């Protein structure tokens, strides 16, 4: 189930709200939330719920042992064991086929492939639970004594399927004590609606237009068509993913949890480094805190560390070479920026560094989109005008004019412009200590909910992109 589906909005969510708010006591509320979360997960993966439960039991037990032997070598041993078990589980489910088929290819062996499939959300919940055992080992947070509470953290449906990667340390307190105020709940609604708008109105629309070009016969694709297609995909992937994070953060607030921000207008970044501080923040900070810094950070073997982190970042996004290339592309660019480019980027006008970054990102999405690398290269050569593809064609013209208003809107929506206008209005128009622009938010919420519902009914195709990871 995804948040932007009719069955979530008009069945699961309203029922969940009723059960949640008729339970007065926090323990009951936790149990309700846990049950609904497990049901939510089972909706998509009735079988893999066992993998999730198993992972929960193992990490719960190991964390208790880590806590019990804290300060001794045993604690370290248990921490490493838990991390190795977690990585093995994700390795088996997500990477086994990738490695086996590559080994088969290189050594001409015949290792059998698995047909189990990938449990939804495994990349997210595995990273969450790894951060938990490491944080317990580091004594940043005490181990959770109650299994159901740990399982609640792991399986909370707000972030289980597509992030953000919430750290236990950030919600440990809220599992036991949360206060839901009208202003929190109302903020949660605002965020949820923004997420719905991003996903249903922007990402799905962009996605439709993107596939028209990206999935078409590449030998007939025009250069401008290729650009329009990849720009649409650039729009789709940001609004899809950040929309999901907004909905997660919004739902969290409605139920009393505060999750950290996951995106901060990444497309207005001025460098690759800046971009990765704004894009999928919970993932990059995970790699920074649990891989990069333990490896030595920028103090020792800096280049090696950067390359390892970015190879892993790529691999996290999917078990195929194109994602590794995509990760390494950013790793190398970061090294380049650190060593050479920063001198240039610091000096040139801001507008040029914006253009530099957005081009880097758009080209990056080519690697990301095409799992088939030869196809990706072919597409890239069209983008840059190699080969005999025409510059312009009717397909481009038709799609461009049919989407031009949307494109302008989406471009502005990728920047803080709308937020800025709203804040300005709030400042300027104050009548009797009352801010009428706040009322417009309420009307806006109702409007977006209605429009999104109508569009959802109109759209049959509605999968979340980030489900693959």
């Amino acid at each position, binding site marked *: 189930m995804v948040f932007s589906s*009719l*069955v979530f*909005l008009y069945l699961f969510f309203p029922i969940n709200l009723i059960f949640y708010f008729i339970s007065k006591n926090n323990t009951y509320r936790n149990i309700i939330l846990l049950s609904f979360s497990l049901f939510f997960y089972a909706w998509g993966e009735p079988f893999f719920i066992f993998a999730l439960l198993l992972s929960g039991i193992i990490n719960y037990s190991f964390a208790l042992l880590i806590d019990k032997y804290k300060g001794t070598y045993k604690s370290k041993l248990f921490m490493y064991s838990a991390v190795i078990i977690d990585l093995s589980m994700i390795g088996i489910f997500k990477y086994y086929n990738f490695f086996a088929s590559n080994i088969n290819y290189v050594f001409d062996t015949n290792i059998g492939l698995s047909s189990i499939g990938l449990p939804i959300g495994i990349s997210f919940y595995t990273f969450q639970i790894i951060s938990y055992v490491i944080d317990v080992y580091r004594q940043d947070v005490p181990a959770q004594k109650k299994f159901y509470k740990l399982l609640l953290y792991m399986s909370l449906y707000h972030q289980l399927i597509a992030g953000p990667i919430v750290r236990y340390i950030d919600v440990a307190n809220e599992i036991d004590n949360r206060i839901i105020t009208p202003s929190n*709940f109302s903020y949660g609604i605002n965020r949820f609606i923004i997420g719905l708008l991003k996903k249903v109105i922007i990402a799905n629309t962009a996605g439709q237009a993107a596939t028209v070009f990206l999935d*078409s016969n590449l030998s007939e694709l025009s250069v401008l068509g290729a650009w329009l297609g990849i720009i649409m995909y650039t729009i789709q992937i940001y609004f899809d993913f950040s929309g999901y994070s907004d909905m997660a953060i919004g739902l969290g607030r409605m139920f009393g949890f505060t999750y950290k921000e996951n995106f901060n207008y990444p497309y207005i970044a001025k460098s690759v480094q800046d971009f990765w501080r704004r894009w999928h923040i919970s993932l990059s900070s995970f790699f920074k805190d649990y891989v990069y810094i333990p490896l030595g950070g920028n103090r020792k073997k800096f280049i090696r560390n950067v390359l390892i982190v970015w190879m892993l970042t790529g691999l996290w996004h999917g078990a195929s070479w194109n994602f590794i290339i995509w990760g390494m592309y950013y790793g190398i660019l970061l090294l380049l920026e650190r060593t050479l480019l920063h001198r240039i980027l610091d000096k040139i006008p801001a507008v040029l560094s914006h253009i530099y970054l957005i081009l880097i990102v758009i080209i990056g999405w080519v690697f990301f989109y095409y799992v088939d690398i030869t196809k990706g290269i072919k597409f890239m050569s069209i983008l840059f005008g190699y080969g005999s593809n025409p510059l312009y064609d009717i397909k481009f013209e038709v799609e461009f004019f*049919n989407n031009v208003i949307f494109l302008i809107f989406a471009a502005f929506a990728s920047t803080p412009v709308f937020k800025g206008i709203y804040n300005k209005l709030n400042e300027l128009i104050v009548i009797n200590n009352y801010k009428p622009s706040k*009322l417009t938010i309420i009307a806006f*919420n109702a409007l977006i909910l209605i429009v999104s519902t109508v569009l959802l009914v*109109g759209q049959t195709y509605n999968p979340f992109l980030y489900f693959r990871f």
Partner: protein
Amino acid sequence: MNNKNHLSILNILIFISLIYTVTILNILTPKNKAISEVENRTLAQKPVFSVDNLLSGKYFRDFESFFADHFFDRENLVKISKNISSLKGIKREEEVYLVDFEGQNVGGNRNNEDGEKPEDNAVVTTKGNLLILNDTVMELYKFNEDKAKLYADMVNTVSSTLGENVKTYSLLAPIQIEFLNNEKYKNLSDSQIDAIKYVNDNFSDNIIPVDAYSPIKEHIDEYVYYRTDHHWTALGAYYGYTGFADAAGLEAVPLDKYKENKAPDYLGYISTVNPSEKVNSNPDDVVYYVPPVKTDMKVFYYDKDTGEKKSYAGSVINKKYVLLDQKYGVFLGGDFALGVIKTNVKTDRKIMVIKDSYGNAFVPFLTPHYSEIYVVDPRHYKESIVDLVKENDIGEVMFLNYILTTNFDSFMDSVLNLVK
């Protein structure tokens, strides 16, 4: 309580009441609707619970489709959603859309007539492209040399298997994009005259090509193609027939010998995939012509469950369809495995037509010339056509398909299976 809290509570109240109003309206919406006429498909039904279904995730997936398909006021919402979507672009002189679609290349059988004609399962899934230009939906054609060659080879193989005594005709019907008087959009599609020529050039000497192209081109300003459907109209088929008459040495019966009638308000097969309301607000008329001869038709099909061959009495012009949604079914009553038409015409000539649904509007015009007409749809028929020809002493065979069928290799495979 301060202002901020007032606003928060108002925000919550409006949000919650919207969510619960729709939830309740949804619960109250009856869930027994089986078919969506607007979309030309069956709606998902409530899934059957079983442990297997549950564990594989199928139960929940099906439930989700069921929930969405029976959403409150769904059909109106779908329409409104089209209007909202049209805001994303700017209106130009011409309203143009290009749509990729995946469809099933089987026509006309959804409206089961009291169970007398169950769906056959030889469904060919095809991918295609549509151009929507103002109020007209058009399929686009892409020439594929290998498949066009395969089509010609298929006709050659059938012809040589049937032997020289059986005359073989081939009619490839062009689609309307070929005749569009807007060069810009016409160029989205490959030349059909070249493709037809290519196929004809690859025929062995025994095959007599039928030129339907020229007479249709000559009358292109008349109502020869639908705006909402990918078929030719009966009038288009008639002009195709005049081409056939020339090739077969027959004298074409003038159209005024037929009794003309029409079924209004037809939204055709491809109108469902279009994003524009302009098309839907301008439906077609299905004009049909009742032959001036007496006909008697028997339709054969295979029972869906047992595979047993069964038959019922059909009719060349099936007026039941005038009132149904799939009005193109008025011609022969849609697609089926085999139709045998006997006429009161005094002649020994018998013909077999191997066809896709373009054949349906065409076959009624053959009735004045033949005593028996065998209509074979290779997507459904499963028996030897060699036997059929021999047993019934059929002297002529015509392949009648529209140009896109030369791209469907599974269609060709189905035909070849009939001469094995």
